[in-house]
């Protein structure tokens, strides 16, 4: 049974169809890469899978249970985590407090004592290399640091599945290398991932399967080598040659 399952997902914004019937399955520990040009519906799909958006049609199952239409905090508590393309830090809180939110509220209490939770928060920050920034507010962080905080915050909720939106974009080659390493480490921990990346090469290296979205529907799907070889990729990104 797949960990996350989406069937027939459609999202309409008035007369605009952002998603037109997408099926997706993610197994435990699997890494799925989402490709597609701007406006193809990648972020919309992430929003639906993460509970931020209720699909106009279709259903989402997590761990066998139906979650379509439930409030976002149910998704969070079940173990679905999310990062955002443009980092969304908690503006008024320190980095440590930001990760403590997920630690404190995500599961039925496993850490009862505040000191334990604090330690867990510090450990999370250390994992992304922000141990020394525990007391810093988001306004004091660089873009790279904010992206790391994004990841730490998403991890704070002990997710079994992570929805990552362009983790590597905007970073230097060195930064992208680090991101690749992160993908590897997340995978080692058995966390399933659905990742959107701009750099097709990055995705090809980390994903078990690739899905190409174009105009809100799936244009190609399969192992990286197969999808990248498909002419549909060039067609999706470059158009039909008339433009």
């Amino acid at each position: 049974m797949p960990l996350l399952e989406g069937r027939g997902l459609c999202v309409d914004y008035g007369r605009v169809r952002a998603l037109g019937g997408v099926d997706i399955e993610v197994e435990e520990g699997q890494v799925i890469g989402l490709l597609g040009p701007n406006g193809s519906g990648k972020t919309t799909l992430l929003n639906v899978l993460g509970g931020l958006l209720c699909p106009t049609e279709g259903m989402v199952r997590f761990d066998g249970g139906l979650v379509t239409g439930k409030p976002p905090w149910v998704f969070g508590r079940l173990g679905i985590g999310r990062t955002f393309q443009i980092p969304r830090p908690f503006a008024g809180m320190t980095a440590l407090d930001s990760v403590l939110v997920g630690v404190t509220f995500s599961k039925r209490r496993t850490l009862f004592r505040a000191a334990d939770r604090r330690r867990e928060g510090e450990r999370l920050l250390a994992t992304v290399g922000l141990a020394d920034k525990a007391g810093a507010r988001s306004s004091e962080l660089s873009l790279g640091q904010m992206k790391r905080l994004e990841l730490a915050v998403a991890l704070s909720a002990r997710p079994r599945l992570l929805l990552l939106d362009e983790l590597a974009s905007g970073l230097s080659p060195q930064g992208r290398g680090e991101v690749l390493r992160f993908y590897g480490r997340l995978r080692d921990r058995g966390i399933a991932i659905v990742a959107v990346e701009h750099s097709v090469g990055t995705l090809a290296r980390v994903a078990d399967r690739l899905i190409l979205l174009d105009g809100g529907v799936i244009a190609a799907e399969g192992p990286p080598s197969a999808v990248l070889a498909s002419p549909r990729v060039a067609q999706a990104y470059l158009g039909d040659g008339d433009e």
Partner: protein
Amino acid sequence: MSASPAGLVAATALCALLPAAGLPPYYLHLLASAFLLATLASAWSLLAWGGQISFGQAAFFGVGAYAAALASIHGVVSWAALVLGATAGAAAGALVSAAALRLSGAPLALATFAFAEIGRGIAINWERLTGGGAGIVGIPALPGPASSPRAVAYYLALLLLTVTLSIFVWMARSRLGLALAAVRDDAERASLLGVNPAAWKLCAFALSGGLSGAAGGLYAHMVRVVAPDLVFSAWYSLVPLIMATLGGPRTALGPAAAAVGLYLASELVLQPLVPTLHQVGYALALIAAVLFLPGGLGGLVGRRRNAAS
């Protein structure tokens, strides 16, 4: 930053000594009133911590006052009546929060204002219960030595303020505070992390309402009269707003200190000088606060993620 518990204890001890030091009853009453306003300001700050701006604290104050008054004149013992007032206030808070769940910012502020007006209207019109426009008179005095009647009220007001400030300090470091801060900054994100915004916002409102209701109940026993235009007055919605905004709503002592300071200055200095205009000071303070406070009220409400959307 928020006050240390030690500072709080010291300040309380100091205040506790004042009646023994022989302060005249008039000043005790004045200080007690100041403490009640400070309690309201702190209760308001509890809501502001979660990004919820309330223009309707008077609703909870009034509900608490009436509940305690009605209980008292029907023979309930004073302290129980006060507890009843607090409970009524908490219930009112929960009701408001549950109704206004989807609201935030200006619409929420207006909704709380409307609630307070409705409370006032019910108090005026439901004559059989509330005594109508004339209100309820002859509320039994608080039990205590006849020699210094104002002292009991003073101590109770001081106690209520201390409890309220302690609750604030506790809240800031607790799970409730963390949840509220997260909801304030980015409710959607907080939700994704497992925080149910509605539940925590309701908690904040119930707590704020309960403390305000307790203040109302105590007020009813201090002046021994409740009337709609007295306890449901927009005054009790406005003043905590001003004082908390000026004092720094993210701190424990700030609003309370601002409240006591402003009130005493207004009563002792302005009132004798310009009797008809002494409320003007509050109004000007509020406008100045909105204009010049760093980050303005936006700083209170928290910033949504930057306009990339």
